[in-house]
């Protein structure tokens, strides 16, 4: 009887959380369309979306500035959340996250190189560089942490990430110094910002993101098996090498796309899977779904906070997420969970 009711709750719980996540996203999206330097009310937002009059300034602010920005936050947050969940699953490591893996620094380095060295200034050009740089840095960190005895441990992963980040940012800042214009162009992107950018990049990357997200959702079962340990997963019939390759490609594609769209946004990918895990338990089929929703809402929420706290100026979303995320990482390190995973 007891086990039945538990099973019932376990089935019911995740659905509830997913519904709640979807609701949060809706509420936050409306807030994101409402809040900003130009005051707007609900009626304006409604007509900006459904009965758009280009002559009305307030409506075009909502339509041309806030709507793209909101979409951007939702997509990038979703990518980061799922990327974090899969990274943590495949490295079997609670500290897996794009920021920790040096992915942000890799993207920044490649993008600045492309702008400065190859004179590529259109998003369509440098988005692929950001993507390649992110993928390269992520793989390097993973392989360094995996080499040597003892496999991937949290500390090795974090240290390898920190050093690759330091190395790449030294090169990035040198390139920026050689050229003041690039510095002026890049410094806002480097802070992680959603203002006036990313739509073109997002259009280019949408097919890739869609494929990777579908792949991620299908991967839940395999991640569950892998969570039991490599040997057990293998004895359950999983092909470890293939699985690693696919999971790694998916998570790096998602993280790299997010960086290309929104700039180096820290800690979302790290924190989201932990929140999801604490809500729905260790089942990766639910963790991936919920990570999408939480990731979107967290990034959107951070963006709204950034617009409100120093109004009328804005705090870049990457700075807000670091301010929230770093204390979370410290909490995580201090809690017992680090040893358990």
């Amino acid at each position, binding site marked *: 009887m007891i086990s039945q009711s538990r099973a019932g709750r376990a089935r019911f719980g995740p659905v509830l959380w997913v519904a709640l996540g979807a609701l949060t996203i809706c509420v936050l999206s409306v807030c994101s369309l409402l809040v900003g330097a130009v005051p707007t009310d609900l009626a304006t937002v409604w007509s900006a979306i459904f009965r758009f009059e280009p002559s009305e300034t307030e409506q075009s602010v909502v339509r041309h500035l806030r709507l793209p920005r909101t979409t951007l936050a939702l997509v990038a947050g979703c990518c980061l959340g799922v990327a974090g969940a899969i990274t943590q699953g495949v490295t079997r490591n609670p500290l897996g996250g794009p920021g920790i893996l040096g992915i942000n620094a890799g993207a920044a380095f490649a993008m600045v190189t492309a702008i400065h060295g190859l004179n590529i200034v259109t998003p369509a050009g440098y988005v692929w560089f950001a993507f390649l740089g992110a993928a390269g840095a992520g793989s390097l960190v993973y392989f360094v942490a995996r080499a*040597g005895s003892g496999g991937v441990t949290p500390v090795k992963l974090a*240290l390898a990430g920190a050093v690759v980040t330091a190395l790449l940012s030294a090169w990035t*800042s040198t390139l920026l110094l050689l050229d003041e214009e690039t510095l002026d162009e890049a410094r806002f992107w480097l*802070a992680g910002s959603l203002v006036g950018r990313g739509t073109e990049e997002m259009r280019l990357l949408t097919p890739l993101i869609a494929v990777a997200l579908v792949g991620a959702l299908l991967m839940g079962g395999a991640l569950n098996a892998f969570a039991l340990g490599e040997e057990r997963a293998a004895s359950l019939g999983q092909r470890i090498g293939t699985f690693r390759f696919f999971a790694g490609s998916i998570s790096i594609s998602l993280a790299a796309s997010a960086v290309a769209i929104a700039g180096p946004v820290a800690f979302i990918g790290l924190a989201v899977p932990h929140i999801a895990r604490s809500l729905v338990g260790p089942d990766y089929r639910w963790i991936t779904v919920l990570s999408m929703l939480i990731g979107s809402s967290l990034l959107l929420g951070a963006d709204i906070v950034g617009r409100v706290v120093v109004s009328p100026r804005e705090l870049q979303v990457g700075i807000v997420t670091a301010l929230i995320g770093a204390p979370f990482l410290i909490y995580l390190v201090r809690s017992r969970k680090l040893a358990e995973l």
Partner: protein
Amino acid sequence: MITFGLANPSPSFLLYFFSGVLVALFLVNKSRAVASKACVLRFGKLSLLFDLRILKLCISTSVLLFLLFLFGLETGEYPIPRLKAIATAFWDRNNEFEFVVNSLRLPRVLTAMLTGFCLAISGALFQSLLGNPLVSPDVIGINSGAALCAVFVLAAGGDIGLLPWAAFVGAAVTALSIYSLSWKTGISPGRLILVGIAVNALLASGVTYVMVKYPIERVVAAARWQAGSLFGVSWTEVGTLSVSVIVLTPLALLLMRRLRILQLGDDIASGLGLRVEWERMGLIVLAAALAAVAVAAVGPLGFVALLVPHMVRLVVGQVTGGALLLTGLVGALFLLACDLVAQQLFAPTTLPVGIITAAIGGPYFLFILVRSNNAL
């Protein structure tokens, strides 16, 4: 073809560079063969126990350092007849090269040496204090703490004289917060590294905020400083650095005894009558202060504090007072060499020295990480 608007390295530079590398490798190899021998020096009731081997190594490093110092005076963009620069620096003041040598090259060379000295000793203190070869002030965020305060002073247009103090306050506060945040019935190196990385990220985002908040003219100064550059250092930096070195180095050497007892483990150390937490806190503040003065002078220079103590340990093993001094000297040598490479590699364009230390230190560190067998 990627071009960055940089000239190709000149053949004479490449010749110097590769012969320098070969000489360095040869000397490291030789120095391993020097036999260890304990000696005692007595003055009445005072006695000093030292290892003859480390003394020899210190002396030879100092000789090398002096040669490189002279070489540093001779090299630069402005053409000066051979040996004229050395003469100008030491005895022949009244000639047309006086400004170039005494106001540009001499402070730069001295700052490089003193900064390298401070960073290397700071790194050695952190590494032996926490019993982990992978800890250094740049990885765990001490440099970022100093950088945040200093960048703020620079970008807000504050007085340059405030820079060292701001950097010190930033570094010390960061060091103490990392220490207390990773405290949990004791300090585990792994936890401290992870907390440090988190704090580092937090402070780095603070630096980013300062960078986007202020107008581009001021940000350029902060950005140049942040890349770790010896460009445009003056006698002011040399003054601050030498005072700090003169005050802090003897302090570090005095505390070395305590440090070696602490390395036996907290239980044994407190059994031997040490107030473990206070001693450790004092050492951390000292190490942070050394990092801070260096950061204030040249910016958050990565990898020197990580790399140099590690290289010295490969040769001499255990950290003692003498080994600490040797680490400082090797740090001075290393940073001076890096700065010469940064100046000459793409001459006439000067690179920030931070990129050279990162280019050498980054791969080396990843290599140690791959090889490390400790349960991290």
